[in-house]
């Protein structure tokens, strides 16, 4: 079965060029992809991720609100007993925040300058470890 991935935009940030390009690249790489659209709350995202039964949840935020929003998504997933969903994150995220987010359980953080290929390859590698 192919990997199910959800790309989500928590918060008020409306810039989703990157999110859409990534969603399409993942689909072209053979994954099933759901994109939430912009301006979703952490609870809406957690709810959708559970409902769609995704393997991977990709959070993106360019507004600088990631330290408030991403931990909330993690909490909301835990509250739904869905902490098996692998979370990755991207956006304008400084290195020090990236370390903190990883400590909270986010598997990988892709900051500014990351390439689409890098992210697609990373998610593919998750698929292998899942099947292995």
């Amino acid at each position, binding site marked *: 079965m192919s990997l199910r991935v959800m790309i989500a935009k928590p918060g*008020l940030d409306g810039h989703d*060029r990157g999110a859409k*390009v990534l969603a399409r690249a993942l689909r072209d790489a053979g994954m099933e992809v759901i994109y939430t659209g912009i301006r979703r709350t952490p609870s809406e995202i957690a709810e959708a991720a559970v409902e769609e039964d995704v393997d991977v949840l990709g959070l993106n935020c360019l507004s*600088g*609100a*990631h*330290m408030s929003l991403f931990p909330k998504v993690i909490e909301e997933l835990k509250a739904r007993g869905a902490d098996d969903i692998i979370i990755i994150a991207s956006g*304008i995220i400084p290195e020090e925040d990236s370390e903190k987010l990883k400590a909270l359980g986010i598997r990988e953080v892709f900051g500014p300058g990351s390439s*689409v290929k890098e992210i697609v390859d990373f998610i593919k590698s998750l698929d292998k470890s899942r099947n292995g």
Partner: protein
Amino acid sequence: MGLEEELSEWNKSIKAKERKPLNTSGLEIKRLYTPLDLKEFDYLKSLGFPGKHPYTRGVYPTMYRTRPWTMRQYAGFGTAKETNERYKYLLSQGQTGLSVAFDLPTQVGIDSDDELALGEVGKVGVAIDSIEDMETLFDEIDLSKISTSMTINAPATVLLAMYITVGEKKGIDRKALNGTVQNDILKEYIARGTYIYPPVPSMRLTTDLITYCSTEVPKWHAISISGYHMREAGATAAQEIAFTLADGITYCEEVMKRGIGIDDFAPNLSFFFASHSNFFEEVAKFRAARRMWAEIVKNRFNAKEERSCALKFHTQTGGVTLTAQQPENNIVRVALQALAAVLGGTQSLHTNSFDEALALPSERSVNIALRTQQLIAYESGVCDTVDPLGGSYYIEWLTDSLEEKAWKYIDEIDRMGGMMKAVDNGYVQREIANSAYEYQLKVENKEHIIVGVNEFKNDEKVNMELLKVDEAVERAQVEKLKRLRDRRDKSRVEESLRTLEKKCESDENLMPYVLECVKSYATLGEICGAMKKVFGEYRPPEVF
């Protein structure tokens, strides 16, 4: 032998291998351009004189020989006090106009203490909750001398009302105020995302503001019809022209439905474009947009006055072209993009700072960005004559070709029944997303080179001072708001909000009622909340 034969001989004689480049709009660029590429060219019809129809060469007869463009850096972060200090710094460094960046809660019409504002307060711009913040923002700045641009859309009526009120408190008549509100809601549904209400009431607010300004704030640009964000979202140069002008057509139609003549408001329209990296394509884009708008206003809307037909615009260099890798390279990118905007005849310009792929700009980086404009204006000599690239075979061919491509999109949108329909059925969003994806594929397979990203890379670690907005800003802003709510005359606030809500159900222009709310110290969130009760909220269609 004539030129045609000579050229054909010359082309045949060339054996060298060469690239066959395409520009962003998909036009194949030839080896050489000659008079043969301008067969339809008629100087007076195609170009004319600066300040005269069709304005291809510029909207003013003397352009930068009289004065350079307005240097206007988009700025705002943290509290109104911090941002006010940045404005004063920029003005002390020779900036000639202000441009306000609001934070996202302000842009979507909620207060800093709203649950949805969590983590966003003061992050991408300044937090404004009430007239109190707005007074601080413009403290010690003479609004009768400076023009101010405000990037505000869904709640534009509220922020303009706050600006007018701050002006009044400083003893400046609204008729003397000069500036712009973006007030372009259509592109928010397409690309930028800071909508509040559904399209129909949103258009009413947009036109209320335009109508109000046409008599009450006559020097104000009541809308800045923006291609910038569509370009940033992935549109090509040709799509940027087409979608922006198609939005412009819709706004004109909406205002004219109110019985207002084109010549009564068209001179107060303004535009906003991006300047990206393909130098000549960008120069030609600005020229083509001017010529097309002149044609639209004159022939589609039958304007009688020449000045109605002049497309005046602001430019910002391309945010998406900035790289996180080797960030100093961005200084050069920005300089080239700024030069293209100037050679394209811009009225005002924002140059991005080199650290903006990583954070909001620091004082040092924004200083370099401003100096870039000053260098172009005062050292390069490009301001010495009007439209110096006019008449270049390549530039004129490119201007014609981009125009032709852009008309095709506009025709397609007309066939669909206009821009509201084309946005509603997702056509515009799809076109932009497709262009963004195609571009990304070209970058990934190195068909398109980006220095420091997919070629000429190094492993240099980026090490520089970045601006960081303190989390304490949010707490301080929430505290300040609480004090205001405790202090103000509650019955006056409630009364003004009730009246506004009632007027939302009528056809009356809402601006006077919004002004009364602002003066009563109602907050932005309360004012937009009152409108939401009648207008409802927009929920975007699920994508995928």
